[in-house]
């Protein structure tokens, strides 16, 4: 198909996409958020082991990279005293391309200083409702066959509140595993094997976890209604703080709906000593695996010292549009996919 007819075919979804963005902006405005813009070309794009940044030139201070998420700079803003901020921005992740992935995509990221995880969940429910109303799919969106889980429905109820469950509950229910969170890597490999999942001898803790997650849990996840998955085991805390009163659980949730991982939220870690320790650990693992080791964001670590308790979340805007328009792939909801540039 030539480009003109392809774009002509995509016009309706682009119009809906723009209207959804307006509705999302209106929601945040109504909630008293300040919309901010932070840099795209940074020195410290994030230490996460499984995210690779795209290089963006070099200057006297060092090499720059495109952001994989706006998290660090937004937290620096929160720490400066802006309690509610939201950003709509492009993020870039090297070598991610698939039905739900594009190397360049749109993120909605927001923070609530002194807010709760429950408030972030309410935000998610409200945003999905607002988007679905604009798309004309409230309270029930179509789910294309290619996106259905094994229990999949042809339509996904979006109204009536989302389901709430925990990581450990899902593991118990679908994989027959009792996970504490302090297992050794060898114990994790044995647990994965006991659930009938094949893991290699060099599989790390989180590799074993995600093998079980993809093999046993994801097919069931959010297939009857959107689902919040909370209480992640501490080794998967990333930038989340420990849940008060619990040793091995992080304050983190993910939102899944009809085969799509829509959002990830943290009760943000504001202990700069602990954050530095985690960054250094992740840097060491990146180095050991032959990946680029990025510098630590010292300004972020400094800002954490005076950051209030904060909850923050990132939601994939393209995936939100996919969900409420019943699109099968992320390319269906953008004007130009990565291979159409």
């Amino acid at each position, binding site marked *: 198909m030539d480009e003109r007819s392809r774009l002509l075919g995509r016009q309706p979804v682009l119009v809906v996409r723009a209207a959804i963005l307006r509705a999302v902006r209106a929601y945040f405005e109504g909630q008293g958020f300040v919309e901010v813009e932070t840099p795209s070309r940074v020195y410290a794009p994030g230490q996460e082991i499984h995210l690779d940044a795209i290089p963006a030139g070099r200057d006297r201070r060092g090499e720059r990279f495109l952001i994989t998420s706006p998290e660090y700079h937004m937290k620096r803003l929160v720490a400066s005293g802006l309690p509610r901020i939201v950003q709509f921005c492009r993020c870039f992740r090297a070598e991610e391309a698939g039905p739900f*992935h594009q190397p360049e995509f749109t993120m909605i990221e927001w923070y609530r200083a002194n807010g709760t995880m429950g408030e972030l969940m309410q935000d998610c429910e409200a945003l999905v409702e607002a988007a679905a109303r604009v798309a004309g799919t409230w309270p029930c969106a179509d789910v294309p066959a290619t996106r259905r889980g094994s229990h999949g429905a042809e339509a996904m109820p979006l109204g009536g509140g989302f389901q709430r469950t925990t990581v450990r509950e899902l593991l118990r229910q679908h994989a027959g595993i009792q996970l504490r969170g302090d297992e050794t890597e060898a114990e994790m490999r044995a647990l994965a094997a006991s659930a009938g999942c094949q893991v290699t001898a060099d599989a790390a803790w989180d*590799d074993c976890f995600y093998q079980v997650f*993809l093999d046993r849990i994801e097919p069931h996840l959010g297939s009857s209604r959107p689902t919040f998955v909370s209480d992640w085991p501490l080794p998967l805390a990333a930038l989340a703080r420990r849940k008060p009163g619990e040793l091995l659980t992080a304050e983190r949730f993910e939102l899944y709906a009809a085969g799509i991982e829509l959002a990830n939220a943290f009760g943000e870690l504001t202990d700069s000593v602990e954050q530095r320790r985690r960054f250094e650990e992740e840097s060491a693992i990146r180095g050991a695996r032959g990946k680029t080791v990025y510098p630590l964001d010292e300004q972020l670590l400094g800002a954490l010292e005076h950051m209030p308790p904060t909850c923050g979340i990132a939601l994939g805007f393209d995936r939100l549009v996919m969900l409420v328009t019943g699109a099968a792939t992320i390319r269906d909801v953008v004007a130009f996919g990565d291979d159409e540039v």
Partner: protein
Amino acid sequence: MASYDTSDIRKGLKVMLDGAPYTVVEFQFVKPGKGAAFTRTKLKNLLTGGVIDRNLRSGEKLEPANVETKSMQYLYKEGDSYVFMDTSTYDQVHIPDETIGDDSKFMPEQIVVEVLFFNDRAVGVTLPNFIEQKVMATEPGFRGDTATGVTKPATISTGAQVPVPLFINEGDTIKIDTRTGDYLERVGRA
């Protein structure tokens, strides 16, 4: 042979899993937000035809399956085996009864089939989807009888019986779908 990486995965790639040769039917990039990338893969067992799902973590190594297919002509049956000839090298191989199985029903002499070799041993044959065969024996047909849905058995040279419409006569040539064993049409008259 060098091993494959998950980034080599593509449709039709033949790999070893749990000691058996598989071919990739479908694959998809998946990645949990905070986890490693995986390739969600659907694979077909080349020996049994069974299809399995496997999520392969990025960087996992896969051993290539030592399989190849050759076009070979079926010559004749000898004892408990069938004799095939490579149409390009004229090499002959014997393939035992149990490997051919039910496929022998639609494997007349001289037919060219695809023979699958695994570790240089013939492990299966794939017939052409359609064959044309002369009817060796059937009840006499009735001229003009084209009633649909009513069939009678017709025997072909391999001894297989195919349900055919009543108007088919001995000596007619018919087209058969080897995957279903169904009569499709009459392509020549006695």
